[in-house]
C-alpha cells in the first residue's frame, strides 16, 4: 500500500532524477521535510540547490519560480497551503498566466505550482480554503486536482511536460489515504476526467477531496437502489466537457460536489455548461453540494456542517432522482 503523500513524493523524486532542470522550491520543503511531509528526505537525496528552502515570501519565490521557468528551468513550486497563495496571486495571474499571450507567443512559462487545499482538519477560517475552482477561472492556467494515489503519483510528470503553468491542488485530507500502486506506476494523462464508478441513475461529479465523499455517497445510495455514476474531474481547467456530457446524457441527472463556496463555484460552471449543452437531456436541474458560505469555523461540528458530506450528497441525489426511482 502506498499513501497519497508517498506517491506525491515518489513523483517529485522521479522528476528530480529524470530532468536536471527540475527543482523544488518553497517554504520548508528542505530541512523540515515539507509542511505536510511530502518532500521528506528529498533534501538529503538532491541537496539544497534542487530542494530549495525559501523564506516566507510567497510573491517573491513564486515569481522567482516563474522567472526560473523563463530561464529554462522546470521548477516545482510548493506553496504550503492554498491560503498563502493569495499572497502570490499577482505573480500567478499577472505573470504566469499572461506572459505567453502578452509576448505574442514568445515566452511560455513551464512551471508547476503545487499546494495543499481544503478543510476538514479544524484549521479554521484562514487555513481551510478551497480555492482551486476559483483559480480555474484564470485563462492561461491549467488546474489539476489529483484525487487518487495513482493520480498523485502520475500527474506531476505530465504537468512538467506542459509548456504552460500548471497548478496542482492536493487536498489535505488525502495525504494519508493509501491504496495499491503498481511498481511501474508513472505519468498519467491530464486531459480527461475519469469515471470512478459506473452507474445509470445519476452522475455525481466530484474532484480532489470530494471524490471519496462522492464514492461514499454512491455506496450508501446503492443500498437504496440508486445507481450512481461517479465522475472524477481530475482536471479543473480545462474541463473535460465531453466526459461530463456523455455521462449526463446517459443518466439525465447530475449532482456536483465541490468543496468551494457555493456562489461562483466550479460547480456553478458545471451547471451552466450542462444547461448550455444538455438542457434537453436533463430530467431535473443539476444540483450542487458545496461548502456553506462561511469562513470555515474551527469547532468540529460547525466545520462538518459547513463542508460537503456523504449525507448531504445522498440527500441531494435523492432530491434529483426524485420520484422516478
Amino acid at each position: 500500500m502506498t499513501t497519497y503523500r508517498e506517491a506525491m513524493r515518489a513523483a517529485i523524486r522521479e522528476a528530480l532524477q529524470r530532468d536536471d532542470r527540475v527543482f523544488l522550491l518553497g517554504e520548508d520543503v528542505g530541512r523540515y521535510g515539507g509542511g505536510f511531509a511530502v518532500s521528506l528526505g528529498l533534501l538529503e537525496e538532491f541537496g539544497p540547490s534542487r530542494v530549495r528552502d525559501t523564506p516566507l515570501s510567497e510573491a517573491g519565490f513564486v515569481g522567482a519560480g516563474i522567472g526560473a521557468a523563463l530561464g529554462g528551468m522546470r521548477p516545482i513550486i510548493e506553496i504550503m497551503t492554498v491560503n498563502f497563495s493569495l499572497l502570490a496571486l499577482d505573480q500567478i495571474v499577472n505573470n504566469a498566466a499572461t506572459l505567453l499571450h502578452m509576448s505574442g507567443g514568445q515566452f511560455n512559462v513551464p512551471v508547476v505550482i503545487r499546494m495543499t487545499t481544503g478543510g476538514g482538519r479544524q484549521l479554521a477560517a484562514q487555513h481551510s480554503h478551497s480555492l482551486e475552482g476559483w483559480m480555474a477561472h484564470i485563462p492561461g492556467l491549467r488546474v489539476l486536482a489529483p484525487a487518487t494515489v495513482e493520480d498523485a503519483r502520475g500527474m506531476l510528470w505530465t504537468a512538467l511536460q506542459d509548456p504552460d503553468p500548471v497548478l496542482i491542488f492536493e487536498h489535505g485530507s488525502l495525504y494519508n489515504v493509501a491504496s495499491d500502486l503498481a511498481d511501474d506506476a508513472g505519468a498519467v494523462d491530464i486531459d480527461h476526467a475519469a469515471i470512478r464508478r459506473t452507474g445509470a441513475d445519476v452522475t455525481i461529479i466530484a474532484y480532489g477531496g470530494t471524490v471519496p465523499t462522492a464514492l461514499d455517497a454512491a455506496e450508501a445510495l446503492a443500498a437504496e437502489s440508486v445507481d450512481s455514476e461517479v465522475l472524477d474531474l481530475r482536471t479543473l481547467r480545462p474541463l473535460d466537457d465531453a466526459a461530463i456530457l456523455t455521462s449526463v446524457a446517459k443518466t439525465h441527472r447530475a449532482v456536483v460536489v465541490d468543496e468551494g463556496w457555493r456562489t461562483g463555484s466550479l460547480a456553478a460552471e458545471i451547471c451552466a455548461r450542462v444547461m448550455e449543452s444538455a438542457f434537453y437531456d436533463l430530467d431535473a436541474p443539476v444540483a450542487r453540494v458545496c461548502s456553506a458560505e462561511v469562513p470555515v469555523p474551527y469547532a468540529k461540528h460547525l466545520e462538518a456542517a459547513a463542508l460537503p458530506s456523504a449525507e448531504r450528497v445522498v440527500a441531494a441525489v435523492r432530491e434529483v432522482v426524485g420520484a422516478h426511482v
Partner: protein
Amino acid sequence: MITERARVAIEEDPEHARDLLRQMLRVRRFEEACVELYSATKIRGFLHVYIGEEAVATGVMSVVGPDDSVVATYREHGHALLRGIPATAIMAEMFGRVEGCCRGRGGSMHLFDRESRFFGGNAIVAGGLPLAVGLALADKMRGRDAVTVCFFGEGAVAEGEFHESMNLAALWDLPVLFCCENNLYAMGTALDRSESQTDLALKAAGYAVAAWAVDGMDVLEVESAARRAVDAIRAGSGPHFLELRTYRFRAHSMFDPERYRSKAEVEQWMGRDPVAQLKAALETADELPDDTWSKLQKDVDDEVREAIAFAEAGHLEPVDQLERFVYSDRVAPT
C-alpha cells in the same frame, strides 16, 4: 547568575517581580496543559505553543494600557492570557465551545477580544502587521493617546507585508510598537536561511524606525525595553521596533519532528528558561519564600484546572447558527 538589572528591579519592587513570575508561569502552565489536551484530542487543529518565550509577551504586555491595542500571531495563547482574556474563555475556545472567546469559531490560532482590544490571532504570517498600522492610524486620526503593539515572528520579516507596514508606519509617524519575536526559526527555517542580513534591528534603519535588540529570555530586560519604547511612542516619536531574542523550547506545532535543530542547541537555550531565571533571581534576593512560591504555583494550577473544567462543561453552538457572523447581525452599525 543574576543580572544587575534584576537585582535592582527586585529590590525596588519585589511584588512586581513576583507578579511577572506569576504571569509567565500562568502562560507556561496553561500551555503545558494545552499540549496534554491536544494529545488527548480535546484540542484540535494547529496548536503552536510559546513555551520558552514567555518573557517576551509578559514583559511587553506589562507596559501596555487598556486603551492600547494588541495584534498577535497564531502563537498567541500567552498574549491573550496576559492581555486579560480569561483562561476559561481561551480554553473553551480551543475546545470549540460557544463559551469560548470566539464562540468556538476561531480556535487556537484565532483568539480575539473586543473588550481588551485584542485583535487576534492571525494565522497568516505578517498578515497582522498592516492591521496594526491601521489601528494606530485610527488612533492618531482620532487624537487618541494609544499605542498599538504588534507581535510577529522573525520569519515574518521576509514577507512583503512586513516591509510595507514598516514603511507606512514610519512614513505616517504612527504609534506602533513592532515586537519581533526572534526565536531563530520559522518552522524549520533558521534565520540565516531566511534573511540575507540577519541583524533585524539594523533592518529597521531602512525605514528610519528606531530599533534595538533585547534579551528576550529576561523578562525584566524586555519590560524595560518595552517601557522605553512605549514611552517614546507616547511622546510622539513614531513607531519603534524591538527585536526580542528568544527561543521556543517545543516543536513549531504538534506536527514537527524537529529535524532542523540539534538537541544540544535546545538544551542550551533551556538553560536560560525565563521562568527559572526570574525564580532564581527572586530566590537569591530572598524574595520568594517557599510558601509564596507554593501559593503562586497553586493559584496558577487552579486557574488552569478551572479553565479546563469550564471548557469541558461548555456547550456547542447550535448548528443552525453556522452562517451567523458572516455578516453583522443587521442592527445599527457599530
